[in-house]
């Protein structure tokens, strides 16, 4: 355990730059210190926000200015010499890059990545087959390429065309990606909370599952779960999405409210209206809800004002009576344990 807060080492912790002993100490401290867990989320949020900064293309005018620069002209050595200097620079660059690559793969954890179609790009290298890619690199596909990322020994992720994902960290304690844009299909077979995908609208946490996650460049996304469960978390807000259900994600607002894909059209339209406009849509959601749609209503309980919460509760109690031992008032107060217990009972119908 640490006797001081490791506030200044949290970025290094997330970047996989701490030695094992130090990393274990930080992890132990995080387990007991809410203040540092909050600080860690801020650091993580700051890192994720940077995905919104695109690499800018240098204007052509810069090279023209360099060529015509008086300074360059007056100091420029003979043409042959310049060619040799640039050739030497390229050679040195190549050697330095090779040495750095060897060094980095020895010291930084790596991901096994393979091209499934076309030529995906990892960092600045095009992949043609299977390769080891160090954590920290971006993996990108264009319209005609796809890639597969091996997630340790617990599963794999397929990166769809026109997508970019950052390979954040991979080790025995967990595997973490950041989806910048596009889509992934994840298939994970492992205990819960070993695989994480960060997006601008929150983090998708694997609870043992298969799912598809899409996200556009402004961070708005959609999660669709085909097997198991996925938790979407953002600043204390959590949406639990089981197989057969989907959930929208909004940059700056976090996860929306999950719904089953076999719900009625009227219910789905009303939910869409609720997430975008609110207004009168809650009445229609409650009227159209089936027993299975208590998945949606359970999440609504904590997302509506106290007055509407009573209406949601009453509709839920009609569809699936409150289990013995649970108190209406405790649920309406959003008591964590009461909500959890009711959810566990409702899940039998989901």
């Amino acid at each position, binding site marked *: 355990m640490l006797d001081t807060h490791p506030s200044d080492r949290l970025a290094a912790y997330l*970047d996989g730059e701490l030695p094992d002993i130090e990393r274990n100490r930080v992890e132990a401290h995080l387990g007991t210190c809410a203040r540092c867990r909050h600080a860690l989320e801020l650091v993580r949020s700051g890192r994720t926000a*940077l995905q*919104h*900064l695109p690499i800018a293309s240098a204007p052509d005018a*810069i090279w023209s200015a360099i060529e015509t620069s008086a300074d360059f002209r007056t100091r420029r050595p003979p043409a042959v010499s310049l060619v040799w200097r640039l050739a030497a*620079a390229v050679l040195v*660059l190549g050697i330095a890059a090779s*040495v750095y690559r060897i060094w980095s793969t020895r010291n930084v954890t790596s991901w096994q990545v393979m091209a499934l179609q076309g030529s995906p790009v990892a960092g600045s290298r095009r992949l043609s087959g299977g390769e080891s890619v160090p954590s920290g690199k971006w993996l990108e596909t264009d319209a005609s390429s796809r890639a597969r990322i091996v997630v340790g020994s617990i599963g794999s992720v397929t990166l769809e065309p026109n997508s970019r994902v950052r390979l954040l960290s991979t080790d025995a304690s967990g595997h973490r990606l950041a989806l910048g844009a596009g889509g992934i299909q994840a298939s994970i077979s492992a205990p819960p909370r070993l695989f994480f995908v960060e997006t601008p609208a929150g983090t998708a946490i694997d609870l043992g599952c298969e799912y598809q996650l899409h996200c556009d460049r402004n961070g708005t996304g959609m999660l669709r779960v085909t097997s198991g469960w996925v938790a979407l978390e953002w600043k204390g807000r959590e949406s639990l999405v089981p197989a057969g259900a989907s959930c929208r994600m909004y940059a700056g607002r976090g996860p929306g409210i999950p719904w089953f894909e076999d719900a009625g059209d009227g219910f789905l339209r009303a939910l869409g209206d609720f997430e975008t406009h609110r207004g009168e849509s809650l009445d229609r959601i409650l009227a159209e809800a089936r027993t299975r749609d208590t998945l949606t209503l359970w999440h609504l309980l904590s997302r509506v004002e106290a007055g509407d919460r009573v209406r949601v509760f009453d509709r839920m109690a009609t569809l699936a009576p409150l289990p013995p031992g649970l108190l209406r008032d405790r649920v309406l107060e959003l008591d964590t344990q009461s909500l959890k217990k009711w959810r566990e009972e409702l899940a039998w119908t989901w």
Partner: protein
Amino acid sequence: MVYDAYKDQVYSIALYYFHGNASVASDVTQQVFLKLMKDFHNFRGESAFSTWLYRLVVNTCIDTGRQADARVVSMEPHMSEMVATPGSQEDDAAQNQMAKSVQSAVSALPPAFRAAILLRYFEDLSYEEMARILNCSIGTVASRLSRGHRLLAEKLSNLNSRLGGKER
């Protein structure tokens, strides 16, 4: 060619270091590559080429910032200059707004934090290499990144709150 391999990264670091000011970023990029050509004979291979290059970038940014301070020149860009990247016309308003928010928040960071964050984000440099570039210890790099990211998240949170308030 070295210029083609590094121009976008150098330009992007300068662009976001100087509040999205494309004019200053172009000037810094030009200075960096002119220095690179002029001083190439000083490169002895004792460090990685990228370390040498990015040290040049950071030093040029710092010098340019100091000169601007001395001349009391504003580095704030016109709004039309912000995040002027290819493809931005196709992006929707929300994407542009988010990019501008992040850019504003990065620009508001202290220079030492800003440099560390941009080097790490655009170049995936290791802490050891960043320490050599920034002429500080690995611990200082870790500290600047931790504090920088926290500040960035807090600034964005405040910004989002204000934007959210306006929407409602």
